[in-house]
């Protein structure tokens, strides 16, 4: 379906890639809803994927008591909800991440404050 209008209806999209300094990436940590929603971050496409766990995520999630316990070798990744295996040595772009992609990670065995998924 589309908009009904009395004249041609054609307006620019606000969130296209060109409007941002870097592609936007959405990141969520499953079972840890103490962080109320996934995060939005503009990240340069040549950032190595491995830098997420070492440099990016600690500033966002480090205050959670579970964060220090994460075994990054067992972490499961999802892209648009589907299981996904990124290569930490490759860049975000080479892992196929594009503007406004949404990824999440699950940390088996860690289920938040008192197991409440908080």
């Amino acid at each position, binding site marked *: 379906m589309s908009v009904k209008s009395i004249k041609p209806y054609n307006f620019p999209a606000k969130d296209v890639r060109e409007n941002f300094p870097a592609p936007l990436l959405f990141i969520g940590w499953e079972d840890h809803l103490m962080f109320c929603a996934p995060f939005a971050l503009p990240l340069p496409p040549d950032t190595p994927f491995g830098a997420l766990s070492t440099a990016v995520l600690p500033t966002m999630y480090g205050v959670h008591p579970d964060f220090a316990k994460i075994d990054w070798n067992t972490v499961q990744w999802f892209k648009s909800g589907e299981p996904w295996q990124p290569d930490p040595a490759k860049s975000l772009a080479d892992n196929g991440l594009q503007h406004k992609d949404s990824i999440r990670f699950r940390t088996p065995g860690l289920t938040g404050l008192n197991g*409440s998924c908080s």
Partner: protein
Amino acid sequence: MDTPVQKKKLSLKERYAAMTRGLAWDTTYQPMDKVFPYDKYEGIKIHDWDKWEDPFRLTMDAYWKYQGEKEKKLYAVIEAFAQNNGQLGVTDARYINALKIFLTGVTPLEYYAYRGFAHVGRQFTGAGARVACQMQSIDELRHNQTETHALSHYNKYFNGLHSPKHMFDRVWYLSVPKSFFEDAYTGGPFEFLTAVSFSFEYVLTNLLFVPFMSGAAHNGDMSTVTFGFSAQSDESRHMTLGIECIKFMLEQDPANVPIVQGWIDKWFWRGYRLLTIVAMMQDYMLPKRVMSWRESWEMYVEDNGESLFKDLARYGIRKPKGWIQACEGKDHISHQAWATFYQYGGAAAFQTWVPEKEELAWLSEKYPETFDKYYRPRWEHWGEQAAQGKRFYNMTLPMLCTTCQVPMLFTEEGDPTKIAYRESDYLGNKYHTCSDHCKEIFDNEPEKYVQSWLPVNQIYQGNCFKEGVDPTAEGFDPLMAVLDYYNVKVGRDNFDFEGSEDQKNFAAWRGDSAEGSQK
């Protein structure tokens, strides 16, 4: 000189006919369709505008007289409230934060409603509908003014009430009500009426007004209560207009039914999402509680809605899509929303806090299936952290739903441990939504929602700094620059209630002990 003939006084009905439809005419220099270009393109077929019934038969002269009397009384109370330092009579300064949300998030909607009804009050071909919309338009403008006046007294004593209009156009969470109304009044006139008069005023408005007004009464805020009483007769008129216009559309042509049903689906869900903030206000922000969000949802939506949609079934209208999900949400959304504002409380124009012990107990009692299991652990953890001087502030911006613009905080139906993610592709771009229903709204009119002014994305695009600010300068602090653009006074309007200027001032004015203010 002849004795003037005493003319028989017109009956109310005749008077209404003379003063409304009698004053209308069909144009002859230009075709009617050219003069009223907006009321056909949505596909709604109207065969006989004379069937439009205005149940109140209000004429302009009666309107002036009646509203003038009401407002005289309202302003007398507001005046007395100010002279008697009524602000000292509220239960606790925490309560004022509910008023801050009302003034920045609801009062500007009255102004938008005024603009919307003024527009459709010009655009309908039928004179009866035009007059009813014009009256409501004036009501909405009056409400914008009287709410502002009723709350202005608090602005002399409390922080965060100083820039409602400025904030409404900029602050992240206020884009939720703002985009709701902009979505409504950029629709056609019939969609606008379905959105505002029916879905919002008729189905959901009790959920907005009752908690705010009884919340005000319970918490000693006579100024806001009096406004509520003054607006009440208008609100019941608006609700009647809402149900009448739905029935009018449905009775005019069977082809209207699916169009109206689509709008009911959309606007019930949009309104429900908008009310998330009211849910949180009711469960967390009133020092003296009226009833839980869950209880008022059951009373005003589940019970009333059952009979409403039973009544509309004879026209072929069913309950809105999303009804079941919205009913399930009654156990969750207030907790999820307050946790969101708590962690982003550095970027809000009101204060947040960890509920006190008795308040946590009240929440456990009111939400026996969900609070202890899912939400209490967050509050206990944050409470402990705050006691150690490590009050939790989330410093990274959240992902937002493209349709309702709320951060993606809502969980899957049946699983409150999983954030609900939905995704659409449109012209090579990805768009994210928080639920099946927000996704469907997006997918139905993607050309419209690709224009969403999403506050987080706008910040990242560099559009939320004051003119002349250089984000590449050394030591540039983006959060401070955004708060400056919002006109949020850092350290006065935002952060935790504990230790705030509002808390200290209120305790000092009331002569409460230092411990009382530290509680």
